[in-house]
């Protein structure tokens, strides 16, 4: 009497996947985390002490390109999920790798940007604006980095076909995380960079 249900079925009360529900709950809680960091920045953005002001250090063209890169990584991520749903292992691996590369480009851009700011006199402890800026963007950058590690780990695991559980779901879950990190940047880019103090 083998149970012949499909591999994609989840026998749950809602019919929804445990992991997917869990991921959306986690993302809901992350809104409170980033909201707190953004609010701290908003409170302190005008408190520049003796150090440089936002308009003195921000390089909008550069950050715009970075933002565009991260945005495009969301596209490649969704293409990876699409490939995974179609059981296209090569396509999945390809798009996951490109996503990770775009993400790494973004992080590289952040590192370059922070180095430039530091050289212009904006250290972590220079002023309240500085500290809250670096903490907010730093937390975001760490989230992106964790995402890149997950993407590359997934590529590695896929290559050896040793994913416990459903492959396409795993890709989709990492995709949700990745898009969320992108969406946070959409907010940060607008509120922090584009709205002058």
């Amino acid at each position, binding site marked *: *009497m*083998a*149970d012949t*249900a*499909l*591999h994609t*079925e*989840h*026998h*749950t*009360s*809602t019919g*929804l*996947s*445990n*992991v997917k*529900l*869990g991921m959306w*709950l*986690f993302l*809901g*809680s*992350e809104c*409170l*985390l980033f909201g*707190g*960091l953004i609010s*701290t920045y908003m*409170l*302190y953005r005008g*408190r520049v*002490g003796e150090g440089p002001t936002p308009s003195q250090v921000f390089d909008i063209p550069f950050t715009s390109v970075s933002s565009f890169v991260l945005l495009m990584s969301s596209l490649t991520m969704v293409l990876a999920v699409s490939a995974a749903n179609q059981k296209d292992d090569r396509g999945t691996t390809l798009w996951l790798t490109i996503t990770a590369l775009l993400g790494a480009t973004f992080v590289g851009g952040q590192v370059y940007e922070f180095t430039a700011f530091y050289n212009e006199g904006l250290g*972590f*402890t220079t*002023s*309240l604006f500085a*500290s*809250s800026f670096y*903490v907010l963007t730093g937390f975001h950058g760490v989230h992106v980095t964790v995402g890149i590690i997950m993407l590359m*780990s997934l590529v590695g*695991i896929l290559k050896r076909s*040793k*994913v*416990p*559980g*459903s492959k396409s*779901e*795993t890709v989709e879950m990492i995709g949700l995380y990745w898009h969320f990190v992108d969406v946070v940047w959409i907010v940060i880019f607008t509120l922090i960079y584009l709205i002058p103090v």
Partner: protein
Amino acid sequence: MAIIERPATDTPAVVAPTVPSAAYGALKRPVSTTSTWRSWLFTVDHKKLGLMYGAVALFFFIVGGLEAVLIRLQLAAPDGKVLNADLYNQMFTMHATTMVFLFVMPMASAFANYFLPLQIGARDVAFPRINAFGFWAFLFGGIFINMSWFLGGAADGGWFMYAPNSGPIFSPSNGIDFWVLGLQITGIASLTGAVNLIVTVLNMRAPGMSLMRMPIFTWMVTVVQFLLLFAMPVITVALFLLMFQRNFDATFFDVAAGADPLLWQHLFWIFGHPEVYILILPSFGIISEVLPVFSRKPLFGYPFVVFSGAAIGFVGWGVWAHHMFASGLGPVSVAVFSVATMAIAVPTGVKVVNWTMTMWGGKLQFTVAMKFAIGLVVLFTIGGLSGVTHSVAPSDTQQTDTYYIVAHFHYVLFGGAILGLFSGFYYWWPKMFGKMLSERIGNWNFWWMVVGMNMTFGPMHILGLQGQPRRMYVWTEARAGEGFFNLGFWNLIASIGSIILTIGVLFFLINIFVTARSKKQAPLDPWDARSLEWMTSNPPKEHNFDSLPTVGHLDEFFHRKYQEDENGQMQRVKSAEEVLKELEDNADAHIHMPSPSYWPIVLALGLPVIGFGIIYSIPLALLGGAIVLFGCYGWALEPSTATEDEIDPPSGGQSQEVVKVG
């Protein structure tokens, strides 16, 4: 697969396989064992985890209680010499921290972990390994915070840790660093637990168990998980900012650099107010189970109790600045938060009405569990009334930072949350341990605790209005005021009360000890209860239910035992044993249970190492990070041995071992 035969009724209990599952490289799974220490260290069973949460929480209750007794000894007489000012600061900080984060929250987790899956007719939670990780993270976090006692002094800024007082200038020892990092670690446990239990409640209910057929305890725990999910990140932000200030020279709370101390207060209390509802709602849930059982009546107004719980959870987000009325917010903010705070009394009042109406006209049985439950209704109401007086901002301006506030929150927390937990102990002990706690000793436990509690905290209302401030390490005769019933008198009464309270708690420990030594077994359903957790053996089998029940009613278990006759009277048609036998006779042939795992404890171990690293040496933090990373990879790669399609969730990439019934 072979043809499944119905097991004979005298077959032995389920035995898990003893062969280690397939290895991935060098990473073997631990073997499922029965009662060695390994079976506890690597368990993912929600019941074992619940027991461990409970044992550790009880230990910290004693620690926090001793901290309180030291405070009361210091304040019993003028010019106390028991604690100097510095130690006193550490004592009240750690007393509160321990009680809130290391006793009440984990004890509620203990009950939730043990009973929520049983109450919804599930075999475990959605993510058993994450559940295990949460416990170990809590344990290591709690130990980590308390190591500060031996490493230069404990945190001394009050449990609310107001900045800049909590900054490196005013608090140079490492105590607050241990506090900050330790709470981050326990906070991860709370957050992951929240995701876990919400998914469990949404996805793992037995057939027919709609949301409005779930027991109230499950409902209240679910609301709490949502509160944790959204509140923990806020204190996470606050703790990070404080950590950056203390350890990396940031100036987030440095007034000279232009910082605003209110930033800390807001962030802390945006977390802190939902936190107090996190503390009380599980106990509300417990007594919502206990009162109906010992009134021989269903809960009055079930939907109202559900919705008022959700309303408390929701409105609780809008009141946090009532902790800041005297901080200089300005009249508009104060007025808004004052009105919001008054509003929140309403859903709580709804609950009190429903509990009272449950008892009204019922055939009351004054077991110890029932006494504790009634105690909650009475004492929490008293605490709630003083709370209402705080909501009136002008009078709170006098009350704030005095012992009147201390009285309020001890009535709601001790008289409310803790009495509720004790009700849970006495109610659920037979199910967990197969033995009933002694009612005789239990009565001593109850009365000494209640008398002691009222004697300790009742006078604090008066002390507060007489002007005794909080966090004052000593009082003198000169400051004690005139007359016989002055600060001195009431402080002495309160201190004597605390000793009586301590003896009350001692009776509980004696009860545990005596019960453990007793040979008397408890029946399956000693209280003639109503919900599914009682439809199990004593204690429940590892897989909880031989067959998952199909639920047709609220209070399903009750309805299996009782049917309405022609006259509309409830008549007993089956005993608990007969109901259980029905499940056993229909036992599932193949039950898939999640396997034990090393990774939760390994991952959890990395966290305090990171903590030590941040305090003492960054390379150590990197080592901790490496352990965490190693744990993550091991966990993610843990091999799957069972087929993908599972009869019972949890699904989603976990190893499962087949457990044969019969």
